């Protein structure tokens, strides 16, 4: 599964499973030294593997939890 910063790249390349993250380029897992926030991104990516009723390619938007 792919953590994807550039949505238009995912739309062009169509990897099997992509999680589009709304962060700045260079910040794919949200923020430095923020373990919980990084885990939130990883958990959303892992869940792409566990959902069986998707048809490839899968592109899901990550929704950060507003603190």
């Amino acid at each position, binding site marked *: 599964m792919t953590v994807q910063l550039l949505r238009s790249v995912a739309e062009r390349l*169509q990897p099997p499973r992509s999680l589009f993250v709304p962060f700045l380029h260079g*910040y*794919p897992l949200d923020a430095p030294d923020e373990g919980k926030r990084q885990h939130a991104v990883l958990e959303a990516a892992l869940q792409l593997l566990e959902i069986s009723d998707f048809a490839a*390619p899968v592109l899901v938007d990550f929704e950060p939890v507003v603190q």
Partner: protein
Amino acid sequence: MGEFSELPLAIRAMLGVYRWRRIDPVPWAPLEKPLSESRLAIVSSAGFVQRGQPPFDETVLGGDFSFREIPSDLDVSELVDFHRSKSFDHTGMAQDPNLAFPLDRVRELAESGRIGSLARAHLSFMGSITAPGRLVRDTAPAAASTLVADDVDVALLVPV
């Protein structure tokens, strides 16, 4: 947020004529066992190398298409950024390499049982490759073989 519009004009112009490669049909491999029994590897193109490994070579025309194996038990402070692109802010990755190569995070996932185990070594690429033919033909199959030989079930791709 990350989009073409935040990239420098020269990069946007290059991406406008870039020959995007796509596999058709889309390869689809369903998970064959629970994640809690699966082995995971990180595949990141953040350009990190382990201190002491050869750096990615900025002089390679079309971008350095090699990869590095990063030991799964490495301290993240031993990762050094050799990504050649100047089009994005490297500050975050320098402060915390987990931002683009989440070694600590995946170790925590394995410790908690969310995933079964980690690969012996994760893979690091340098993401600014404008001529990917050699990557596609030679390096990517070699990298995939490395993961297959290590019984990796899941690859976490973090393109940068």
